[in-house]
């Protein structure tokens, strides 16, 4: 498909997703989770048929892990994403009764809360970050999540309607000084800021790391930021297990990120590699939770 074709698909997909999300929101409010889950099967099927670039990227990803996938395996991947997105509506509005949570490493977060230590959590577009946030709000953990509103503006608008209060804890990724200063102030006040560290952002600062046997680009920003703030860093992933279980993981990554002047690039690569290796470990546990629907190993054009 040509570039222009891809562009127009994106516009249509966004329109489709906003209509879809609103309809699903109405369904869940009127009837609950089960009918909405039925409806998103149709949505996921539609996307699997027509979203050729997402389908291609998913085929490429799954081929690296499980071998060439069938159409239904690709569909399952897109369905998981739809299910996790649907669940985020329940999770942000605090309706946790639908779910079961398994937690590993939550003592790290408890310790941070008790000692009022600010920290950075590194996550990924993998499983659910909302599950982690939902649990944290029930335990009054000052957890903020950085979101890329450029891509998720519409979904975020809906989430804000569902729960204006919890939306305040989403930090919209910005390009100016304010966004970074805000993170700094939060961490200094003892808040925990979660950043998705698998997609290279608009600033384009990237480092390469080996991921599933091939070099891929990862953002350098989170490590540079953490090194400036001199705060501890943890990894966090929320794996979704169909139909209603979330497995939440938190593990220490570094007490402090140190980037020596003379070997800054190497140090960045080492941190990114450690992140990539741990991410790979968790992705192997639940490949169907991988929600990067673009050519992850692709070169920047």
């Amino acid at each position, binding site marked *: 498909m040509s570039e222009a074709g891809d562009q127009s698909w994106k516009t249509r997909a966004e329109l489709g997703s906003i209509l879809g999300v609103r309809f699903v929101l109405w369904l869940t409010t009127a009837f609950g989770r089960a009918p909405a889950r039925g409806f998103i099967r149709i949505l996921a099927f539609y996307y699997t048929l027509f979203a050729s670039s997402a389908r291609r990227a998913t085929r490429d990803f799954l081929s690296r892990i499980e071998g060439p996938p069938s159409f239904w395996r690709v569909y399952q991947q897109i369905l998981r994403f739809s299910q996790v997105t649907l669940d985020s509506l329940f999770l942000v509005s605090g309706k946790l009764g639908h779910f079961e949570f398994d937690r590993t490493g939550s003592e790290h977060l408890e310790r941070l809360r008790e000692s009022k230590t600010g920290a950075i959590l590194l996550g990924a577009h993998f499983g659910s970050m909302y599950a982690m946030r939902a649990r944290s709000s029930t335990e009054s953990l000052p957890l903020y999540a950085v979101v890329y509103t450029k891509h998720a503006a519409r979904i975020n608008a809906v989430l804000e309607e569902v729960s204006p209060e919890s939306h305040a804890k989403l930090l919209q990724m910005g390009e100016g*000084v304010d*966004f970074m200063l805000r993170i700094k102030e939060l961490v200094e006040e003892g808040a925990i800021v979660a950043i998705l560290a698998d997609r290279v952002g608009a600033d384009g600062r990237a480092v390469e790391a080996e991921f599933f046997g091939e070099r891929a680009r990862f953002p350098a*920003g989170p490590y540079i*930021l953490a090194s*400036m703030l001199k705060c501890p860093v943890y990894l966090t992933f929320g794996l979704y297990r169909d139909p209603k279980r979330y497995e939440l993981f938190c593990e220490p990554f570094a007490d402090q990120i140190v980037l020596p002047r003379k070997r800054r690039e190497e140090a960045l690569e080492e941190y990114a590699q450690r992140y990539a290796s741990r991410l790979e470990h968790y992705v192997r546990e639940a490949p169907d939770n991988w929600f990067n629907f673009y050519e992850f190993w692709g070169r920047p054009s």
Partner: protein
Amino acid sequence: MSLEAELKELIIEALMLEDVAIDDIDSDEPLFVEGLGLDSIDALELAMAIDKRYGVRIKADDEQNKQIFSNVRSLAEYVGQHRAA
């Protein structure tokens, strides 16, 4: 050394712009995107260096931030007004 020159030195030092000299930076040249081409991470680094050196704390909710960080001249004006005498 003038405050503007000091700040240029601080920018080069804090952001590790090894191949840039003080004279290369024009006081009216934009710091971000065009001009020096700094990004938001650089901005934070610079804000923290200014805090450390001059005790001037730039807050996230300051509506003037965009203006303050627009070039060396406006940055120097702000630091000059707010630093401890």
